[in-house]
């Protein structure tokens, strides 16, 4: 009986079909082993469906620490990206900041001191065509936000926990309104709820107490260049040069120091070789188990 619906013709304005939005959480430290107390950066982006709406009107989401995390830290409020200024007080509409002052667009810390999550990161455009007294002072709605690719909604960082272990951080309770009818002030625009998914809505890190280093920076001078190869070759063949961080010189991450490491680094530097094994861009612990160590790498925490 229900399939008899097929016998009916549904005439829908294109702007009224189901709208969707995707929230994305990312971190350059995602999947890496990092040192206790190092900085973890994160960002949230949003994209909305095209063709069935006029762009983003409101975005809200919580950033929470996983209940299984070995240790909680304070997640500090995010910065407001320039493109989202009209979603944040005073131009846009957002929660008030701490103590009722300023903008809470970057999220409201929630929980005990030292282990706070961030609630309701984000805000809204003023779609009402009239200005508020202390918020929503920009009455001209910006159309098509989020429709030509992901838009950076928020960007923040926090200090990594000190206890070693695996940690995860999640986006939850995402809410997105999109513009269904675009008005011109003093007329109002109409906003409707979008179906929200988070993908990815999680990132994970490993806090490791193992020594941190940058692979390839064999001479520990905060740069990776030919001098590092010379430093390693000197150690191998002219001695007695003592290396302060064997792991940094093990450029092919095979657990031994030999001529192949110098060749690997030279190839990476000058002959189009691929990137060195992690950690090669930022400080990190050796993800593979071997007998090499790292006594001192002063460039990393």
């Amino acid at each position: 009986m229900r399939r008899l619906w097929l016998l009916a013709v549904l005439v829908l304005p294109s702007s009224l079909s189901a709208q969707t939005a995707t929230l994305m959480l990312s971190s350059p430290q995602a999947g890496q082993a990092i040192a206790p107390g190092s900085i973890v950066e994160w960002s949230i982006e949003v994209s909305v469906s095209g063709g069935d709406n006029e762009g983003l009107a409101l975005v809200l989401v919580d950033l929470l620490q996983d209940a299984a995390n070995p240790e909680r830290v304070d997640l500090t409020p995010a910065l407001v990206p320039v493109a989202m200024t009209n979603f944040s007080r005073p131009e846009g509409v957002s929660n008030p900041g701490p103590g009722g002052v300023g903008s809470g667009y970057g999220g409201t810390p929630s929980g005990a001191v030292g282990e706070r999550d961030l609630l309701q990161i984000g805000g809204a455009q003023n779609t009402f065509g009239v200005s508020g007294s202390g918020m929503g002072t920009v009455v001209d709605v910006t159309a098509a936000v989020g429709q030509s690719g992901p838009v950076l909604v928020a960007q923040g960082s926090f200090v990594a926990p000190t206890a070693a272990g695996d940690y995860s951080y999640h986006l939850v309770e995402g809410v997105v309104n999109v513009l269904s009818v675009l008005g011109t002030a003093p007329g109002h625009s109409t906003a409707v709820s979008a179906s929200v998914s988070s993908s990815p809505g999680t990132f994970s890190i490993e806090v490791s107490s193992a020594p941190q280093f940058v692979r390839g920076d064999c001479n520990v001078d905060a740069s990776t260049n030919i001098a590092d190869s010379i430093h390693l070759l000197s150690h191998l063949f002219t001695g007695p040069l003592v290396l302060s961080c064997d792991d940094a010189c093990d450029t092919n991450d095979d657990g031994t120091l030999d001529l192949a490491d110098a060749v690997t680094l030279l190839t990476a530097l000058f002959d189009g070789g691929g990137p060195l094994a992690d950690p090669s861009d930022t400080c990190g612990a050796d993800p593979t188990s071997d007998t090499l160590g790292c006594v001192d790498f002063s460039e990393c925490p």
Partner: protein
Amino acid sequence: MRFSTDSAMTFARTATRCLALCAALLFSVPLLAGIGDSDLDGDVDAVDFAALESCLDGPVATSPGCELFDLSNNGTVDMRDFASFQQNFHGDGPIPGTLNVTWIHGSPSCSSDPNPPIQVHQYNDNTFILRQNKCLHYEAPFIYVLFGDEKVFIQDTGATSSSSAFPIQATIQDIIDTYEVDHGLAPLDVIVTHSHSHGDHVAGDGQFSGEPNTTVVGLSSFAVRNFFGFTSWPDEVVTYDLGGRVLDVMGIPGHQAASVAVYDRQTDILLTGDTLYPGRLYINDWDEYQDSTQRMVDFTIGLNIEHVLGTHIEMSSTPGDDYPIGTVYQPDEHVLQLGIEHLIELNDAVQAMGASPSFEVHDDFIIFRL
């Protein structure tokens, strides 16, 4: 809005709001609870935005006097409540919709008509207009489906009873199911009403009887009065709240004893049934019809009327020209929508006729005393 501030003005506004709320509760003024209508004037507009601004404290305990804005009922007035408020904001004007639609208007050969029995047009997010195919029944009545947060209001069920030939219940149920999913709503109460009780508007009632969460309003004027709560029929305008969407309902006997007009405050659409539409306006009781058109005109004074929508189209696009009774093909038919000027024109005409009703052709309708 906080009592803790020292502003006497703030206190006065808060007290006024509290009094308004108490009055609404005591005297059953329709309260648009859950949508942010802080001044209880039937809309969510700039005044409510200004009131919300002083209450938006974020995810902390709600300030006293601000409970009306706690739309999620979780003890805070924060951006999650604002998200609902923004969706509910309608401003001072109506929620727009589109009538840019070509209605299926029958076929020169109904035996090979490729069109479906029911056409569904979405006027806006929560308003649907359906039309029965003229090949199925020459009356080709229009059917209205209006969604609130708690109820879906259906006006009329068509001219054919057979669910296989004319699956009106299944068609509307699919619309409802989709709407509930898209809006995250629990199952809505389905209210089946009628513009009046003639057979070409109630034939599908049986398809709704016994369906879950469904009420089919009776056909007699007594049943209509009882359902909507009229105490003084037809000299009274009563309200019917769908949940964040208030309808004004008035009795307009004349075409038929149980005729009602419905004004939707959200879209500013006036539904007039067979009392006014682009076609032959058959009048059974002249005195009552005169009174009804006058009451409708009086009701609309000071209101915006976006569209006057009836339940048939019988006129062609040529002024004063109608299709013959029983026609099943209207390739050049009049648009469905009329305006307030047509209601005024009708009322002026029937009042001018006094006690001597006559057949009178107007550009967009025909007065037809039976």
